[in-house]
């Protein structure tokens, strides 16, 4: 059977399904925040060795905005929310429109991005929580804007010394009222070495539990 990282093919499908639901919830949350209908393109889930992340995201010198959050609770590790600078600017414009600010009251544009990353990360973690009954929380995001690889290299270096794989979720949204162009946001979940086993075994259990349910349908 084909293996993807920690999981067999079936189990990986389950992870995929879980992340699809996360993406659905994330787009609903964004819809509310941006006050715009949002169409969701199904997410791509990758479980890859740390060094391959940059290759999937784009060129190493691409300009991105990234927020980093810690993950605490039953599972520990860190979360990264990555959005290209062009998409970031479009998200900020939408956030400003939806807040209906007058010229005097400006928000700090990047705080909108922090908020969006907060929401998206929270939604994904809660979908993991719902499926696996794990309590996971995330800490307040910190932000960096720079070249893709330079922002992520610290975490990739740390992760490649400690863990074999990390979880990488690629989301694409379309906001039909503005343009047909896609907004691409990515979420990288790095588990601490101790949490990997816990996460994998809980997921396998959950897969069995829910796998039975879907078979009966």
């Amino acid at each position, binding site marked *: 059977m084909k293996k993807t990282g920690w999981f067999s093919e079936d189990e990986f499908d389950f992870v995929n399904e879980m992340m699809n639901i996360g993406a659905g919830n994330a787009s609903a949350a964004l819809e509310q925040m941006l006050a715009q209908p949002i169409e969701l393109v199904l997410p791509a889930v990758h479980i890859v060795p740390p*060094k391959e992340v*940059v290759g999937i995201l784009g*060129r*190493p*010198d691409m*300009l991105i905005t990234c927020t*980093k959050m810690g993950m605490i609770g039953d599972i520990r590790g860190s979360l990264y929310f990555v959005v290209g600078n062009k998409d970031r600017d479009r998200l900020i414009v939408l956030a400003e429109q939806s807040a209906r600010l007058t010229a005097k009251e400006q928000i700090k544009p990047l705080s909108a991005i922090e908020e969006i990353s907060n929401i998206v990360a929270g939604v994904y973690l809660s979908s993991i929580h719902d499926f696996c009954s794990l309590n996971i929380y995330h800490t307040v995001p*910190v*932000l*960096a804007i*720079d*070249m*893709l*690889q*330079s*922002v*992520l*290299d*610290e975490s*990739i*270096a*740390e992760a*490649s*010394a400690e863990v074999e794989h990390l979880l990488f979720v690629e989301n694409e949204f379309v906001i039909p009222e503005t343009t047909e162009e896609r907004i691409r946001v990515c979420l990288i979940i790095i588990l601490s070495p101790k949490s990997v086993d816990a996460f994998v075994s809980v997921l396998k259990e959950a897969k069995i539990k829910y796998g039975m349910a879907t078979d009966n349908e």
Partner: protein
Amino acid sequence: MVNNNKDIVADTPIISICMGEGVVARTPGVIISEGIGSCVVLTLYDTILRIGGMAHIMLPMNRRERAEERRMKAGVIEAKDEERRKTAEDRRRKVQMPRILDPYFVYHFADTAIEELLREMLREGVHTPDVVAKMIGGASMFEYDGDKQPGIGERNISGIRDILKKERIPVIGKDIGGCHGRSVRFWLNSGRVVVSSIGMKEREI
């Protein structure tokens, strides 16, 4: 490799290295590496023979290899590792000269990277007292509040500095620390290193 650097003459060979890789080459040529954050790029240059080496170092100590070695001894990952070595060999054959050395382990860590870089340079006939070093990178990209522990960037820098001191290689230029990413171009004909960052002037070190 697209040449988008105006200051590199059209037919100069360009060698581009990624995170965790290293290379040794003779003049003429330019070695470039993009997107350096907390990693450190170390350049070694023999001022007389004009042979240069560059390593994009990720971590200060080779902990991973030790863990891997342990597991290799236990026979757990032998097959996998053999596979890695094979792809490395394949890649090397494709790229031909100058070859990028084992892309998997050696250049991830300061201690083995410097060892390997020097070994490779000695093979080319370099005389160690002629070698000078430059260091670029070691930034901390995210601001931590209340976290007083030195970040990976700082540990990389101090680790590399210690090893260079032991090898008696002088550090003649550096552009380290801060909280911005960097890209590096290293000219093999002169040992010149140019560092560029987003929204900042280019600096020559």
